[in-house]
């Protein structure tokens, strides 16, 4: 059997784990795929190179796959996501100064996002009264879960993310420096960057995003829709390789090996121990060494996380509507949902019954249960939101 050559782009983040392990552990080769992983520096590059056909597949922000299919932000190229590389996995990290300010204002549990969001609202109001500059929050891309998770959290506490604070895009490798030198007061990013900020003593992890949403699709394995149609066997082989890798990573006895593979300089290129913490969901959250554990920090294949869930796609689309990135139309909603392809996943792995871990599939800490069939009605219940562009 001759092997099929593929070029696959990725960003050095822990949620590329299934893809990297699939290649470096030989699972892809055993599926007859000769995969070259190409490390990229920006999501714009990954998106453009995938869209242009320079990549056959890519590690991509789930919202970018949807935006690309809708023609938002760039050229319109329909994308198919047959595999979810990661569910959750982000954290909100804040500077020691902001941490002290929030802790001084908090009423309730520090892991309760409603308590911290309300405390943030008081900090924001106090700053305004004292004539101080608004707080600045870093996130990774306009179409990113990081953006939506930050917005969802602060808006629940009464902070308008467009009026009361500044939200800026920062490439993940610049996050820690920017927090250290005061260009941002906080950021939301994936691993390993939160842990690196804590280890350097410049940040506190305030929340795992799983505090905010029980289940949020973070990165997907993305291919062009047309390419998926033309290469169904290759798509299936790639999905199977990633599935094997995800299962490998989720076994605790394999974690050390997986972390070593991911730590290689040409992959993620950071200390294996830092990666290990994320995979285990056992993170140092404070420079004083305090540890927090969560079984939901990053799901790589566990709890059926790898199977694309169109409800997740609908939720991400709803956030684009909520924050004025696009208008709500039934056609756009249909397209958004159709980006996530459980059918391709099932065809590759063998049909599986989807797990329902959370009632509405999202499990947000605030607001009504998510209704994927009535986005406009669902969003109507939120006070802080933008009017869509006309």
């Amino acid at each position, binding site marked *: 059997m001759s092997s099929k050559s593929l070029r696959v782009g990725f960003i050095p983040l822990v949620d590329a784990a299934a893809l990297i392990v699939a290649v470096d552990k030989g699972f892809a080769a055993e599926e007859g795929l000769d995969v070259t992983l190409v490390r990229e520096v*920006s999501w714009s*590059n990954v998106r453009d190179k995938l869209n242009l056909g320079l990549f056959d597949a890519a590690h991509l922000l789930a919202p970018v796959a949807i935006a690309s299919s809708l023609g938002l932000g760039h*050229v319109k190229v329909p994308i198919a996501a047959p595999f979810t590389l990661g569910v959750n996995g982000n954290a909100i990290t804040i500077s020691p100064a902001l941490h002290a300010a929030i802790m001084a204002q908090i009423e309730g549990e520090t892991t309760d996002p409603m308590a911290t969001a309300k405390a943030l609202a008081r900090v924001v109001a106090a700053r305004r009264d004292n004539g101080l500059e608004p707080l600045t929050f870093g996130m990774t891309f*306009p179409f990113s879960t990081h953006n939506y998770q930050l917005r969802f959290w602060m808006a629940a506490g009464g902070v308008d993310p467009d009026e009361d604070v500044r939200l*800026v*895009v920062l*490439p993940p490798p610049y996050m820690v420096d*920017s927090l250290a030198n005061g260009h941002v007061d906080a950021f939301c990013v994936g691993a390993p960057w939160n842990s690196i900020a804590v280890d350097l003593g410049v940040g506190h992890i305030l929340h795992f995003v799983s505090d905010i949403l029980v289940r949020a699709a973070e990165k997907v394995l993305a291919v062009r829709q047309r390419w998926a149609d033309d290469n169904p066997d290759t798509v299936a082989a790639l999905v199977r390789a990633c599935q094997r890798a995800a299962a490998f990573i989720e076994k605790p006895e394999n974690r050390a090996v997986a972390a070593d593979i991911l730590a290689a300089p040409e992959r993620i290129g950071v200390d294996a121990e830092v990666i290990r913490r994320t995979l285990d969901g056992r993170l140092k959250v404070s420079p004083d060494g305090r540890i927090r554990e969560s079984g939901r920090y990053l799901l790589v294949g566990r709890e059926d996380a790898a199977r694309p869930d169109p409800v997740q796609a609908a939720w991400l689309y709803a956030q684009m509507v909520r924050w004025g*990135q696009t208008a709500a139309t039934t056609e756009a909603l249909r397209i958004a949902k159709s980006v996530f392809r459980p059918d391709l996943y099932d065809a590759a792995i063998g049909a599986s019954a989807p797990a329902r871990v959370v009632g509405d599939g999202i499990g947000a800490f605030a607001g009504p249960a998510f209704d994927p069939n009535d986005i406009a009605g669902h969003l109507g219940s939120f006070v802080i939101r933008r009017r869509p562009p006309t």
Partner: protein
Amino acid sequence: MPAESTKIVIVDESPIRAAILQEGLREAGFTTVEHISEMQNLLARIYAIDPDVIVIDLENPSRDVLEQMFQVSRAVRRPIAMFVDQSDSASIQASVDAGVSAYIVDGLKKERIKPVLDLCISRFNAFARLQDELDRTKSALEERKVIDRAKGLLMKLKGLTEDEAYVLMRSTAMREKKKIADIAQSIITAAEMLK
């Protein structure tokens, strides 16, 4: 809008490439060209300059920052668009291949922008060729150093003349179908291990 009043910003951490680009743009009549090499607070700098066109190196992580500018601007400031439109995938391809991306402020006519992008693509390609040449020269120089060292070792250890040492390495390289530099490197490695 005439060329001389088109304000262009080059975002590039390579001062040499930026200079090559700047010179080309000036020759083409674009006199208002500014270079940003420092990525801290990029958006603030760009807003302060208020350019019509932003040209950025594709390997710069801050490309994602410009995507936000595009998003935010569409809502609250002024529209910004990627130069190439939906139908123009050949131009996107050419610019990605060359390693450059350009963003323009809406309202600048496409005919005006086309020469800017074409020029940037050709300059980026010229820079890539230059870099390539430099790398080749550098590695040729390195190889020569390695060969000279190995030659010296052979002369000392085997009592050969310089010519004899070279001929020995060349014939070994031919027999083993390797480069002389590789043979020379193994001689050095072996000599170090036998020290």
